[in-house]
């Protein structure tokens, strides 16, 4: 056995206290301590210090058993004011604004088509692009089925499943470039987590960020519209804070935008690539309210575009989307009155905010929870009746009551998720208390609502997450978690609209992760 120096012994005593010695080092240290009185005394002192600290801390804080009851009441009351967050992916946000006019045109076309034909399926297929060989489109996603996080790709028809990173390090959160040729992702293969680029087959790997700091893609599509830059967050160990940056895909021109409280700031590029919006918590009285800021892509002119949102209204969702000209942002804010004794009532509103923050225009308002607003139609959810309502600007509306499909009709454990496509269509998953998941499709203004599958997807403790539409609206990928196992599914929506007996493809076997994103290739 190798003897160790006194200096090394002292270092190893500390490493042992932190559980950082391997078995061989432990044996070497113990042997040294047996023969070295001073080191043994130091080790005893340090062990005594550990015990002393533990006792002192427990004596001081254990008797204080927990937060006051007031905290519980305050948190639950205020938490109820956060009914919906992040329903649409930030990736979708980026493009949805650019597509707004197209959606309006499609919606008009859609209504006209509806008048011409009584078949909702026929209309449904009309609104999707006729991309040739749509099944060739690739989906990139993260899976840990081989024991560590790797990025896989698969064609929309389920063929060609490939582990494209195939590396023992952590590789996750892929996002396709706008031209569909490159994939941005996170990896810690070089020690710290950095942003990398690779081709669709994993070749031509390039590390974009550098330095001894953690870097992350901030939960949303990081690509600028022209594919020349990426948004990322960097953790500065010295300052111990996250900062939002842009960087060229060549790793040059790293530009700080703003400090953010964490990686969940939902940044998105304006359609013209000139601005970046992101959400921030801002103190308002005794609360932190969610607000939206916009900064120039060069890091200048940081502006709170929500400064005229009433002080008592919080952003209901971190979803917001850009206007097609990139000059304004649409968002949902509101207040929830849980105790109506004071005569107040809940209020939700859709607003349009200009980038200079000087104009805020109310587009729609409701006392029912407003999930989002799209081209003049508010998408509402009643927590009491568990019903979805599409309320159009002319006052007409359609309603979906998925609870009626649930056995026992017990609404206490009803859950739902939804995602709007780039074209405005909605994919809705409604989970019954018994774990049955029913899937629905609706057009942008809710004039057509259709159940996608004849039978529910059933599993114990089932939950649906990470819904991702393909850009042509033909496919949806989503994660289903049950008993801590998560699988990725692909549903051919176009086929299911025509034949509800269609079944979704299961792409991973308990190796998925519910909170990793998946990303569809923009063009096959």
């Amino acid at each position, binding site marked *: 056995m190798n003897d160790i120096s006194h200096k090394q012994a002292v270092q190893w005593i*500390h*490493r042992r*206290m*932190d*559980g*950082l010695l391997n078995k061989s080092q432990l044996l070497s240290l113990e042997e040294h301590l047996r023969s070295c009185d001073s080191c043994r005394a130091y080790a005893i*002192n*340090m062990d005594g*210090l*550990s015990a*002393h*600290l533990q006792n002192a801390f427990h004596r*001081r*804080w254990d008797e*204080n*058993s*927990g*937060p006051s009851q*007031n*905290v*519980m009441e*305050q*948190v*639950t009351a205020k*938490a*109820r004011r*956060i*009914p*919906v*967050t*992040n329903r649409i992916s930030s990736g979708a946000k980026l493009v949805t604004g650019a597509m707004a006019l197209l959606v309006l045109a499609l919606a008009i076309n859609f209504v006209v088509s509806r008048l011409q034909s009584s078949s909702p399926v026929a209309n449904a297929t009309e609104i999707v692009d006729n991309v040739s060989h749509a099944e060739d489109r690739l989906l990139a996603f993260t899976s840990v089925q081989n024991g560590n996080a790797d990025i896989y790709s698969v064609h929309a028809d389920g063929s060609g499943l490939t582990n494209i990173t195939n590396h023992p390090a952590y590789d996750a*959160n892929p996002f396709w470039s706008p031209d569909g040729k490159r994939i941005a992702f996170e990896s810690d293969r070089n020690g710290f987590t950095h942003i990398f680029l690779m081709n669709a087959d994993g070749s031509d790997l390039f590390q974009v960020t550098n330095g001894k700091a953690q870097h992350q893609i901030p*939960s949303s599509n990081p690509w600028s519209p022209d594919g020349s830059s990426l948004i990322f967050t960097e*953790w500065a*160990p010295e300052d*111990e804070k996250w900062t939002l940056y842009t960087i060229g895909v060549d790793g040059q021109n790293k530009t700080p935008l703003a400090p953010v409280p*964490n*990686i*969940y700031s*939902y940044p998105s590029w304006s359609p013209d690539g000139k601005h970046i919006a992101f959400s921030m*918590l801002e103190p308002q009285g005794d609360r*932190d309210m*969610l607000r939206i800021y916009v900064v120039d892509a060069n890091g200048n002119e940081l502006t709170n575009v929500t400064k005229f949102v009433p002080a008592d209204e919080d952003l209901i969702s*971190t979803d917001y989307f850009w206007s097609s000209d990139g000059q304004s942002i649409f968002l949902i804010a509101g207040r929830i009155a849980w105790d109506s004794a004071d005569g107040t009532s809940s209020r939700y509103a859709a607003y349009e905010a200009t980038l200079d923050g000087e104009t805020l225009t109310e587009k729609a308002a409701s006392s029912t929870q407003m999930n989002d607003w799209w081209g003049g139609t508010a998408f509402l959810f009643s*927590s009491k009746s568990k019903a979805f309502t599409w309320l159009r600007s002319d006052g007409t509306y359609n309603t979906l009551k998925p609870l009626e499909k649930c056995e026992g009709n017990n609404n206490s*454990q*009803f859950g*739902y*998720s939804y995602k709007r496509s780039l074209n405005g269509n909605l994919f809705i998953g409604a*989970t019954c208390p018994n774990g049955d998941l029913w899937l629905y499709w609706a057009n942008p203004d809710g004039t057509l609502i259709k159940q996608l599958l004849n039978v529910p997807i059933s599993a114990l*403790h089932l*939950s*649906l*997450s990470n819904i991702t539409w393909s850009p042509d609206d033909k496919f949806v990928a989503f994660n289903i978690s*049950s008993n*801590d196992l998560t699988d990725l599914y692909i549903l051919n929506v176009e086929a299911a609209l025509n034949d509800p007996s269609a079944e979704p493809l299961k792409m991973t076997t308990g190796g998925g*992760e*519910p*909170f*990793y994103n998946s990303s569809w290739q923009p063009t096959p």
Partner: protein
Amino acid sequence: MITMDYRLIELCRVGDLSAIENFVQTYQQDVYRLALSILDDSNEADDATQESLLAALRSLDAFRGTSSLKTWLYSITVNICRTRVQRWKRSERLRQALGGILRVQSVPSVEENAMENESGEALWRAIHSMDEKHRIPIVLRYYQDLSVPEIANILQVPEGTVHSRLNTARRQLHRVLKEGSL
């Protein structure tokens, strides 16, 4: 390996009231104890607990599951407590500056109060005199009983940094012990 209750998170995400209460009920104790051990003041810990749980509920939809829910929640709580400590330090500096200029008696701080209540305890004086970079790892290690990798995950710093900070803090505290102040 993720072990949290996806169903609970999913229900919280869509605003299910009983799920939100369940979430708060499940985690409030742990969050409070962590906040109390960093802030060492029950009122401050109450506020920080409230703020942390609300911040977590607000961000649940973006929780990626790369760490456990508890680690993620601890990370949020530590950041919120840090902000509170920094806010307190700023106001304390201002108070001291004003006290110097106007010769006004400054109000005893949270930490001074704690120290006075535990007068004679040099260990506490030493702990309170540490900066957060060293104090928080010590608390996480010896009160929360967390491993170095867990602490590194919460503080978003490399494991070596955590070990180094623990070393520095332990040496300082060992010196206090050695000087026989206890």
